[in-house]
């Protein structure tokens, strides 16, 4: 069991357990990856950046030009953002790409002000209803889930941050009764929150104490996170409506796609009776956020927001590329259990921008080859 050994090394408190009960040493396998805090978030996407190369400087300059021109050329901005957005301009770029901010520079400030007021209007109007009978279940579920969102990052254990997440999710849920709040949506606030927070924070955001920020700053971060998350969810609502048809459809599409692009892996799954739904449900429900370190998700979302239907459609190709990335490890596993443990705990802990860049390039290639050729794609 080569892979379980690999997972074990990532898994700190197990050694004494094995001593306590040597009988179970080989059989007991880790349930989920234990991701060290530092590896999870601290890199150029969320915190203090390494020195810039000339190429990076030129790129940043290009972004600054685009962003400050009277009418930002959104097509051009998407093109530039696809391979990754520099940290310095990511907050404003994300606001533009998500469709939250208008391209016209003069309209941005009043729009922001209006939208932020609108959001806090919702809070005033609805938030008190969280303890009323018809909203009680929704609120209680969110309330239970927030402390379990990013449990290993200190930033998210701060009461102020948890309250922000609760308000965002509750307001979104009651304004979208067709789906309501579904677990997994809580994760989707995180990248926006971290990126908008990074606008005010020079050091590592993961340990930042938000009480250092003014009320106004916190309100802006909260409202912007709400609106950008809402825009994202608008594109994938059928993932969260009754019986989650969007996810069912995408997992099926993933299966079909993989059967075309890597028959060997596909047959390997069939042979050991592994069903795609058993591992890929979470990939779709949480947009791979559970499988990747947060810094990678942020980089991934640069591209998702630059790609037409990034979160709904392109994500499928990213999942396929992600699966095939592990083909060797998959083919090495020769029973159901080993396969499931591997697929649930893929070792992406050290991944950074480079790995995501390669993954996206492969996904793009797959999309190019298969998306526009339905006959080729269909069996």
């Amino acid at each position, binding site marked *: 069991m080569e892979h379980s050994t690999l997972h074990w090394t990532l898994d700190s408190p197990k050694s004494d357990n094995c001593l306590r009960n040597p009988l179970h040493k080989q059989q007991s*396998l880790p349930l989920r990856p234990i991701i060290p805090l530092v590896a999870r978030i601290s890199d150029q996407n969320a915190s203090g950046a390494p020195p810039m190369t000339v190429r990076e400087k030129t790129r940043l300059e290009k972004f600054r030009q685009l962003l400050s021109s009277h009418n930002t050329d959104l097509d051009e901005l998407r093109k530039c953002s696809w391979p990754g957005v520099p940290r310095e301009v990511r907050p404003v770029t994300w606001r533009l790409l998500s469709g939250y901010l208008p391209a016209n520079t003069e309209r941005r400030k009043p729009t922001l002000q209006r939208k932020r007021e609108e959001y806090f209007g919702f809070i005033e109007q609805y938030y008190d209803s969280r303890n009323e009978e018809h909203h009680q279940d929704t609120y209680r579920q969110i309330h239970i889930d927030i402390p379990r969102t990013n449990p290993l990052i200190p930033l998210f254990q701060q009461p102020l941050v948890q309250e922000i997440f609760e308000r965002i999710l509750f307001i979104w849920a009651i304004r979208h009764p067709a789906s309501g709040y579904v677990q997994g949506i809580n994760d989707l606030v995180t990248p926006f929150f971290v990126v908008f927070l990074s606008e005010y924070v020079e050091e590592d955001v993961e340990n930042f104490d938000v009480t250092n920020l003014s009320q106004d700053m916190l309100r802006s971060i909260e409202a912007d996170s709400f609106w950008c998350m809402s825009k994202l969810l608008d594109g994938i609502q059928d993932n969260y409506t009754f019986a*989650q048809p969007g996810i069912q459809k995408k997992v099926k599409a993933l299966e079909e796609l993989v059967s075309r692009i890597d028959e060997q892996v596909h047959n390997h799954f069939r042979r050991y009776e592994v069903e795609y739904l058993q591992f890929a*449900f979470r990939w779709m429900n949480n947009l791979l956020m559970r499988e990747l370190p947060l810094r990678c998700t942020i980089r991934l979302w640069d591209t998702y927001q630059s790609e037409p239907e990034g979160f709904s459609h392109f994500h499928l190709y990213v999942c396929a590329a992600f699966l095939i990335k592990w083909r060797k490890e998959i083919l090495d596993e020769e029973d159901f259990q080993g396969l499931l443990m591997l697929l649930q705990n893929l070792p992406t802990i050290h991944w950074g921008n480079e790995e995501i860049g390669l993954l996206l390039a492969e996904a793009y290639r797959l999309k190019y080859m298969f998306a526009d050729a339905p006959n080729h794609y269909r069996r």
Partner: protein
Amino acid sequence: MAYAYLFKYIIIGDTGVGKSCLLLQFTDKRFQPVHDLTIGVEFGARMITIDGKQIKLQIWDTAGQESFRSITRSYYRGAAGALLVYDITRRDTFNHLTTWLEDARQHSNSNMVIMLIGNKSDLESRREVKKEEGEAFAREHGLIFMETSAKTASNVEEAFINTAKEIYEKIQEGVFDINNEANGIKIGPQHAATNATHTGNQGGQQAGGGCC
């Protein structure tokens, strides 16, 4: 790894009652106070020994939220055992047991062994559900019952192992059709070979029990 039998389990119950923590304590012997929430279903496994035989447990841990019910339901069918979990510090999680039980009975095979678990027994000061209430519910519905603490590991081994013992006994009694994998039981590779010889000699379903 050779095993005599493989049993499939499912863990069900309201959100936040400690299903994933029970599984983690059982498979990894550790407790994670703040656990990532389970999305859809997640898988865990461990080998145990009953009556000198190696038994592999494959366990599906399900998300408690109602929204995932359409996904999690499909895992009942192939399960030989179910752990139905509530939180002794939250009365509502106990009140929902009837719904869970109906759901389980409706979607599983009729012989599935169900273990009722009152979890978080370490939080005595916050207890809202008496042990006797759990016992009474279990008696009334024909379930096995235990109070556990995923945090202190109290009764966690027992909960998983006693469920397996019950399944094992049912196999001995010939209640389970072990050749039908939809029952959540599989005969191990070695065992299957022995079994085949027996089948040749004695024929029929008894063979499974006969060789044990």
